[in-house]
């Protein structure tokens, strides 16, 4: 939106809400990366910090919802303003979920620290987490810049995350069959991988919100999606 409102306070309200969402995005991305680092390094202290940090994300989401409710009640936003408010609320909710997943990863990393290591798994998880963290960052950059092109790219890139999850799934199955003592840690690791894959889905939904914000319409189902990948079986869509 190039023009400013006649009521300048309306501009300030909308800018403030969007700044809160960007802050949430930064926290969610950091939480995910920190949790994955804690997992690989078996760093209980860092994992604890991630766990405790989730409250800040929850509080930010509440603040955003309250501010949006105020704007709706006082300003009756329409058109692009309305879409800004609607998308802010959805994005905040997606980021809050991402925070929950990071917290869950941190909790499981504490449990995993007491179990035998699964060869190579923590490194793969950390790489996947970094990849998803970048996806989240790009989705939020697309939001800040109103860049529908970047948003479409994010949507397409989620496929890579699904492939990574599929590969990990097969790896864990192989480990569990080879050594039953690894069943417990592999189950935890699998939940972690699944949760990171879910964060990727949230990044995709944020990207879709960007497309709605810019164009007024949600994107259709043109996204290439191999259903089999998220079921751990590439090429065998169910």
């Amino acid at each position, binding site marked *: 939106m190039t023009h400013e*409102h*006649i*009521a300048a306070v*309306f501009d300030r309200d909308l800018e403030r809400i969007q700044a809160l969402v960007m802050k949430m995005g930064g926290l969610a991305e950091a939480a995910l990366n920190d949790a994955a680092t804690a997992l690989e390094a078996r760093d209980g202290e860092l994992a604890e910090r991630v766990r405790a940090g989730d409250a800040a994300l929850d509080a930010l989401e509440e603040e955003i919802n309250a501010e949006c409710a105020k704007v709706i009640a006082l300003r*009756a*936003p*329409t*058109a*692009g303003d309305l879409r800004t408010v609607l998308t802010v609320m959805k994005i905040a909710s997606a980021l809050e979920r991402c925070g929950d997943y990071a917290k869950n990863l941190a909790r499981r990393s504490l449990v995993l620290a007491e179990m035998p290591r699964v060869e190579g798994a923590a490194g793969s998880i950390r790489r996947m987490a970094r990849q998803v963290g970048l996806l989240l960052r790009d989705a939020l950059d697309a939001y800040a810049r109103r860049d529908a092109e970047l948003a479409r790219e994010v949507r397409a890139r989620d496929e890579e995350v699904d492939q990574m999850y599929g590969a990990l799934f097969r790896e864990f199955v192989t480990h569990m069959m080879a050594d039953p003592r690894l069943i417990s840690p592999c189950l935890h690791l699998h939940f972690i991988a699944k949760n990171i894959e879910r964060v990727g889905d949230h990044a995709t939904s944020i990207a879709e919100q960007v497309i709605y914000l810019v164009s007024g319409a949600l994107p259709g189902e043109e996204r290439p999606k191999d259903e089999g990948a998220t079921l751990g079986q590439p090429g065998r869509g169910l």
Partner: protein
Amino acid sequence: MQTPKMTASGVNVHYGSTQALFNVSVDIAPATVTAFIGPSGCGKSTFLRCLNRMNDTIAGCRVEGRITLDGEDIYAPSVDPVQLRAQVGMVFQKPNPFPKSIYENVAYGPRIHGMARRREDLDEIVETSLRRAALWGEVKDRLATPGTGLSGGQQQRLCIARAIATAPEVLLMDEPASALDPIATAQIEELIDELRASFSVVIVTHSMQQAARVSQKTAFFHLGSLVEFGETGQIFTSPSDPRTESYITGRIG
């Protein structure tokens, strides 16, 4: 798409040497509330007044183009503007009851158009019109008192009763609630929604929220041109023209 109740195509309006409307084409759908919005001087009221030839009364006003009601050209020489205004009724911004009794305000139109032969018929039209205007309960015991003694909101509902007493097919409303308090405004808006079952309603309003609340179709006028015309929901969530967006979101356009 339903057959439109009224169709305007290529309408130009000049006041003397000044052109007020440029090539406006709009379909007014039956049983629908159509809102005209736009900044002051955009031509929305001028266009509204073309729909029942109210502009005929303004010296130096020239209307070009074609406007039809049920397919009939309303500017054809054979059309009697007084008869037309019974079919296409109008309610104004400021309540303007006649300085007569409540009863006479409503009875006037049906009487001059010869719609009632007996007193009982006229009584029935008056009661029905006042009921439909949601005013009957408040005035039924004082029909002989002056219409000007009612509150502003009641006066406006009286004017609506007067407008619908001639059984019009289209009701034009020029800022019908801008002089009313929020309660009276809500009553008028509720009334508009009920009237929609029987008439096409066209409303000019400066209140964006009112347009959003009461209409199904919205037309945005700017500098004498129709910029955008579409479903109200679409206009207020994702207008396609940046000028519409600037106006409805309250930006300096």
